[in-house]
């Protein structure tokens, strides 16, 4: 914990006014001016005492924000407790302090500075304040130190306290809404149907009865259907099988080796590919599709096909954790057969049909405007995809 005092411009101006009043009180025999001069001096002393006393032994904690998303507000909450027994806290600003190291994952490389404002916290009372960051890039974002600063009550002398509170969080890639028809197109008409499984309970449609086996939930026992030997039977249910989609992100070629037209930013193109994949995953899961993820060229585990928000979080965390500076691998990835799931392969620069089976979709970031629900509202990255559409014949167009 590090304490520091700060003199600001207002303090210097105040000091100048105080000296002027003192000078006037000296040359004019006016006791009122003398008293005002004393009051002005007293306020300087109080300013230092109060701001110092209030921040003395202050306790600050950053509550884990879990994750953020590019271009969306990320609310970071702090728990602040005043350490003084007597002085309440007023007008305290909590800031993140950039790391001294030139770390690419430092928060200052992701977003602009912001502060949380605490209007009041009683002595030894804990309050929560929040700062809103808007991350501008994807990846692992690290917070390092926290600073509490206050120049209350008069703004003359400020005091700051800095504490180390390291925390790492993920910033998910930017996403946009994809057209439902485009998703249906990618799924190829859907591979729906019933699928029975071990799942019992009350969810799903009735599929039949079977003999009770150890481990079956007691809720699944069909009490009115008892076998002649008095052993119980359980109701077996079938779950509807949702459409399935496997996203394959082709990152086998390193950034430097990407074959793009002159003037294109290869790293940006890679980020757009990741965002496109994330957008498809998000929209698909929102439509009830089970989505899996394979990342080619990166030593990252494959994510099985699942649905639901939690799985979506896993997918996005996987995409957020991609380190494009790491070494690329040329290893083979396992692509399921067409009757298992639809496959969408997201390439960065050129389509490579070797990845995926014959029915797989091969997309480029430049295809995003065709798939986006509102292509006109795409910001810079979407716009760039749109703009990149005229670069070359190889760079555009989806292939199936």
């Amino acid at each position, binding site marked *: 914990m590090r304490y520091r005092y700060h003199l600001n411009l*207002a303090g210097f101006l105040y000091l100048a*006014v105080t000296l002027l*009043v003192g000078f*006037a*009180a*000296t040359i*004019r*025999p*006016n*006791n*009122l*001016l*003398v*008293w*005002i*001069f*004393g*009051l002005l*001096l*007293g*306020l300087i*002393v*109080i300013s230092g005492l*109060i701001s110092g006393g209030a921040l003395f032994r202050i306790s600050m904690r950053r509550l884990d924000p879990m994750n953020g998303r590019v*271009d*969306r*507000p990320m*609310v970071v909450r702090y728990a*602040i407790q005043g350490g003084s027994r007597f*002085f*309440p806290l*007023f*007008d305290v*600003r909590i800031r993140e302090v950039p790391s001294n190291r030139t770390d690419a994952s430092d928060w200052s490389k992701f977003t*602009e500075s*912001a*502060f*949380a*404002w*605490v*209007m*009041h*916290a*009683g002595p030894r*009372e*804990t*309050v*929560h*304040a*929040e700062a*809103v960051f*808007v991350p501008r890039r994807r990846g692992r974002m690290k917070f390092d130190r926290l600073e509490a600063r206050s*120049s*209350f*009550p*008069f*703004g003359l002398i400020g005091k700051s306290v800095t504490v180390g509170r390291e925390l790492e969080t993920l910033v998910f890639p*930017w996403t946009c809404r994809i057209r439902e028809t485009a998703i249906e197109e990618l799924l190829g008409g859907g591979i729906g149907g019933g699928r029975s499984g071990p799942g019992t309970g009350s969810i799903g449609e009735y599929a039949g009865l079977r003999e009770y086996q150890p481990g079956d939930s007691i809720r699944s026992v069909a009490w009115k259907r008892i076998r002649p030997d008095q052993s119980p039977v359980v109701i077996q249910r079938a779950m509807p099988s949702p459409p399935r989609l496997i996203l394959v992100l082709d990152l086998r070629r390193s950034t430097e080796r990407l074959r793009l037209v002159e003037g294109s930013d290869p790293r940006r193109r890679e980020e757009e590919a990741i965002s496109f994949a994330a957008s498809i995953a998000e929209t698909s899961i929102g439509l009830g599709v089970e989505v899996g993820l394979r990342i080619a060229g990166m030593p990252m585990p494959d994510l099985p096909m699942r649905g639901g928000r939690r799985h979506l979080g896993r997918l996005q965390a996987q995409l957020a954790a991609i380190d494009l500076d790491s070494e690329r691998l040329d290893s083979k990835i396992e692509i399921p057969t067409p009757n298992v799931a639809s496959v969408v392969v997201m390439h960065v620069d050129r389509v490579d049909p070797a990845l995926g089976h014959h029915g797989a979709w091969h997309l480029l970031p430049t295809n995003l405007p065709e798939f986006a629900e509102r292509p006109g509202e795409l*910001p810079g990255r979407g716009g760039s995809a749109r703009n990149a559409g005229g670069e070359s014949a190889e760079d555009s167009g989806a292939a199936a």
Partner: protein
Amino acid sequence: MTPLSRYRRHLRIQVLLAVTAYAVALQTFEFMFILGAAAIASGYISDGPRGRYLPFWVTTVLALMLFAWSVLSFMENPDPAVTMALVGRLGCCLAVLRLFGRRSARDDRQVILLSVVAVVGACLYSFHFLFGLLVVVFSLHTVQVIMLNRLQSGLDDARAGRRGLVADLPVPPVEAASGRSPIGQFRGLVVGCTFVACLLATGVFLIFPRQIDADGASLGSRTGFTPEVDLTRNDQLEQSNREVFTVEWADPQGVPIQWPQPLRLRGAVLDRWSSADRRWMTSAGRRYLRTVTTSGDPNEFVSLGAAEIDRGLYTQTVTMRSLATSRVFARWAPLAIACDQPRTFTIEPADLELEDTVTGELDRFTTYRLLVDPNPSPEAIESIAGDAIPPVRAPIFNVPGVREEAERILRAEAPELLEPLVDADEADRWRRNREIAETFTRYLRGEDFRYTLDLRRFVQRRGVDPILAFLTEFRFGHCEYFASGLAGLCQSLGIECRVITGFVAVEYDDALGRYIVRESNAHAWVEVRTGRWSWREFDPTSSEVLNELQAGRRSWADDWRWLYDRADFLWTSRFVTFDGTSQATLADRFGELVGTGGRGALEDARSLARRVNQYFRLGPAGYIWLGIVALAVMIAVIAVVTELRRRRRIRQVLHAGKDVPLKRLREAAFYLDLLDAFEVAGCAKPASTPPLNHLDEVLRVRPDVAEAARPLIELFYEVRFGTRRLDTSARRSVAESVGRVRSIAEGGLS
């Protein structure tokens, strides 16, 4: 509800206080009404729900116009003395103007700064009690407003930071993170800050290096007594009905009476006219100061030098109301003095001018008495003066044109007085002087001359003496001009005379048996030497004029002025006149206190008690009353502190915020006594344990106490968290039960 809810209102009050203080200091009340009304209106127009603001360009143009107005005012009257008044006026106007503009907390700082500039500027023009009170209130309120401004600034910055964010989704608005009872704690902090600031300010005030004898006279009150006659001003004098002191005039038998003529009380004697400075002053070479010391008994007179004072004399008793000065105002001719405090007075034997040396005292005297002989014998004056009175010689008055005017008047009014005296003795010469002075007095009281307080048309021109201008050109003015004219005419003809400034007592209160002397009774007249040891008063200002003015200035508010004037006296006596001498005295007393320890403090306490007793005139029984009052105050303070501490503990123990009414807490207060009983029983309750759970613990250690306390604990739950109410009898019953639990805990009962 946060402390910021009333921020705008406090800012308006800040501006209103500044405008009021400025108006009180410079006596410009129309200014206060106009700007005050505008400041109040801004609360409805700009800060109200409709939020109408003046466009930025309009406020800028108006500000430039105000600035130009101030510059033109300064160019019209380029007097450095009025510069700060103009700056203060500009500050007030700009502050009010800013209230009508769209502004942030940063802009509000300008409003605060402008109001501070206005008040500091006004400090150079007034030292009156009301103004001082306003300045103190303004200063303390400024502390609160600055603190509120800091909070508002933080909120504005947080909002601005959020507004600057560009995101795909709406950014959540700023929510002020706040703990419990922010308003109460903010108020507590404000009170604490202002208290400490006042203490520090008082400390600086006491040790700030000062000049000796800074009695505030140089600040230039518009009305009232000044120890000099300055004829450089040409403004309109504002009349003040402030009571400065009261005078009891008792005949030789001690019966208060009203003197048939206005009672002229001499304060300062001025015998030399300075054409360069345009003012009357005291001759540098006439000081033969002598000192007398009073005992502190108001009935024990000390002779001022007269050989014989035991014959029947009039007694003049002066009781100060608002004026705190070192001057002693005495009817001619004072022969002995007594004071209610041990004081040392200086006396100028040549003209009997009296003054307090104010050594050894922090404040001014409140009452003094004089034995006065209205018609003193030459022997009495001679015995006081000794060799102080210089030999008779012609005064020097070198103003061209005045002697010619004097001779013209005499030719017109009494030509025989211009004829030279042949074979005349000394008595004839004194008689001639008296007749000439009477002629001039008659002339000045004539229809050609007009008494007025409005001197704005009295144009001061370079190279033209104001006395000559008064006599020959303008022929109007107030008493100082009339007295200066008479003295100038007499001195130009070689007649020895002097200008006297002081008060003229004309308002006699029959009920009190005293004259009420107000600031507006400040007066100037002339004393002409009519004998080797005698001087005679000549007042060229008509008494009828003074009486008419006095009657016209009375109002219903004057009946209540004594209340204000008493505070005014304390203010002036303790604060305004605190100077280097007072500092030295204070330092000596502090040294004595440190040196003598408690003995010195005891002596001071006794002295204080004696003074308070004398102040209220309680007599010997007063000490008993003072003791009773002190005891009552002490008990009250202890009771208040105890009650406050108990309330605080109740809220802490019951985790009750400010929203819980005190009445409900009082009903549950028996729980505190129950906790004390548990502590006595050796089962102190941890703060984290609920009462019923703790009862189980008590049951394990002291089952008897637990059994007795169980119904009370259940009752506590009903009162604190339920709807059960306890009336007085129920509370008494509960208190008895708690007492029983405590007795059991102490082992008194089984």
